[in-house]
């Protein structure tokens, strides 16, 4: 499906193993991520796809140590082979500043409305790199031009409310790239944008990966959007990884009923019957996890063991899945 699928000989950049993220709330414990594992190799684009509430954002936030105060993470998160889960805050801050950058869903609210774009871009550059303000400023202007903001030299001193959503997201992406991260985590970077702008942002991410070799973890609930950019895909549901593998394997040979349901939900231009095929039913409540496969309540292929045991994840990096049915056949 995509140009250069990585084979997995080199060491992964990021390797999440059996991650569990829980939140303490007055109503009890909420399990947002429930034993998820995934890894990303240098320069690779991994799409993490799942419905709202499946734990995608919390996985990303756990990596960078930005969980809400009431959140705890367990398991293992390796960055270049070293454990980063539970690192002290100043080391995590350093990791965020130098290696792992993030772009969030809503560009309209993610930039500080009270500060100029230039102020927000330059800060953090002059701090960690030995750079003067003038150097940092011209680096920012260059980066804005890379993300196709016209007349960047003048517009850099404007305030966020003077830009459109699509432009703000480009600015956010430019800002995240300034520190030359090895990994860019983009958490639904297109969800808040117009459909026409969505594809432009995806094109931009592709361009960035090509230009800087940045690995990208692209979080989305829109499987259709990531088809053209992702090397690999992880399908997430109810805090667990249902299926993962090379993009072409997942797209052409989906093994998990949930993946198939997601693929069916992609609107197609060629068979536009005017209705979106949503998956029937609701995802399980993260505050009360049930036993067995989390998808069994909505699954049309349910067998007895689906209700009792959680399926093991079988397969390789090229293609793996967690489903009793496919495991048996």
């Amino acid at each position, binding site marked *: 499906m995509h140009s250069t699928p990585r084979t997995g000989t080199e060491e992964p950049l990021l390797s999440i193993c059996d991650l569990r993220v829980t939140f303490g709330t007055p109503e009890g414990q909420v399990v947002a991520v429930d034993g998820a594992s995934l890894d990303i190799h240098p320069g690779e684009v991994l799409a993490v796809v799942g419905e709202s509430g499946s734990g995608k954002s919390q996985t990303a936030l756990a990596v*960078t140590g*930005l969980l809400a*105060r009431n959140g705890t993470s367990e398991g293992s998160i390796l960055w270049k082979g070293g454990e980063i889960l539970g690192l002290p*805050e*100043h080391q995590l*801050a*350093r*990791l*965020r*500043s*130098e290696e792992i*950058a*993030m772009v*969030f869903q*809503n560009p309209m*609210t*993610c*930039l*500080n*409305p*009270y*500060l100029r774009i230039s102020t927000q871009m330059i*800060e*953090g550059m002059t*701090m*960690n790199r030995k750079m003067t303000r003038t150097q940092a400023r011209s680096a920012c202007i260059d980066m804005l031009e890379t993300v196709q903001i016209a007349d960047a030299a003048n517009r850099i001193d404007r*305030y966020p*409310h003077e830009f459109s959503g699509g432009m703000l997201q480009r600015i*956010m992406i430019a*800002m*995240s790239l300034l*520190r030359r991260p090895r990994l860019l985590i983009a958490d639904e970077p297109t969800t808040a944008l117009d459909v026409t702008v969505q594809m432009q942002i995806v094109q931009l991410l592709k361009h960035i990966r090509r230009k800087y070799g940045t690995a990208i973890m692209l979080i989305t609930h829109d499987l259709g959007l990531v088809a053209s950019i992702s090397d690999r895909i992880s399908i997430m549901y109810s805090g667990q990884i249902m299926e993962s593998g090379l993009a072409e394997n997942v797209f052409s040979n989906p093994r998990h009923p949930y993946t198939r349901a997601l693929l069916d939900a992609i609107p197609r231009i060629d068979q536009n019957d005017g209705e979106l095929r949503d998956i029937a039913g609701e995802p399980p409540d993260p505050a009360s996890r049930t036993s067995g496969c989390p998808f069994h309540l909505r699954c049309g292929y349910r067998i007895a063991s689906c209700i009792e045991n959680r399926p093991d994840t079988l397969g390789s990096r090229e293609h793996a899945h967690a489903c009793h049915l496919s495991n048996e056949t």
Partner: protein
Amino acid sequence: MLYFILKRIAIAIPTILALIVLSFTLMHYAPGSPFTGERPLPPEILTNLEAKYGLDRPFPQQVARYVWNIVTEFDFGPSYSYKDRTVNEIIAQGFPVTLTYGSLAFIVSIMVGATLGIVAAIHRTTWLDSLTVGITVGAQVLPNFIMAPILVLVFTLWLGWLPGGGWQGGQWPYLVMPIIALSTSFMASIARITRSSMIETLNSDFILTARSKGLPFHEVVIRHALKPSMLPVISYLGPTFVGLITGSVVIDIYFSTGGIGQHFVNAAINRDYPLIMGVTILTGILTVVFNLIVDILYVWIDPRIQY
């Protein structure tokens, strides 16, 4: 921005003029006269007095003369009750006193209040937060007229550390209790406002962005959260200012500081109309100017405000 400031000043001037005319009219039609004492004055003396102060002339003429004197010379005329002293002299003597401890109380309220609020917000759900909230809730129900006797009781009568009143040219032992008594409740309100707006700001998306850049947390607070979380505090500065002015009347009397508040009360008791009007108009002008500064501050902080 300059245009905005000029426009606001252009609005402020008629406001002040209206204030002057209105207070004069109210005083003119208020029942009674400064010369109705316990024993009625003989009619010829009354006529003489009225002629001396110009009270025999028609009302419009009186207003015009009053406004004219203020606008051209900032002259509020003679006092009725303090013989041979002008309102200007009395104000010149009392006003600096009130202004000194008043502005210090203002600064203390903001600095201490905002600091407490920020500390509480940052250490939310820890004992430090609970302590600050406890203190501010307690302090908020302690207005100046309750704080003043408590302070005197503790620091003058029990501990003997501070003088119970007086001014002595504003030496610090005489300043401490007026400032604390006047600022406590405002300090508490500002602390509460700062705390809740800081907590709200820290939950914003842009704070997450700032943290994701790897800025240390104190820099995230100072660079990104301070400005937006101070906006509600700034809108509270107007009411604080007015509250401090009215509170100073209590302080002046309780601590015998010789400030303008003391004269104001005396003037009201003696029906010294020029003095009442002088103090009223002066505080009115200050309030207008102060609100002007607050408005400008607002526009300066929030780039989204259209002006």
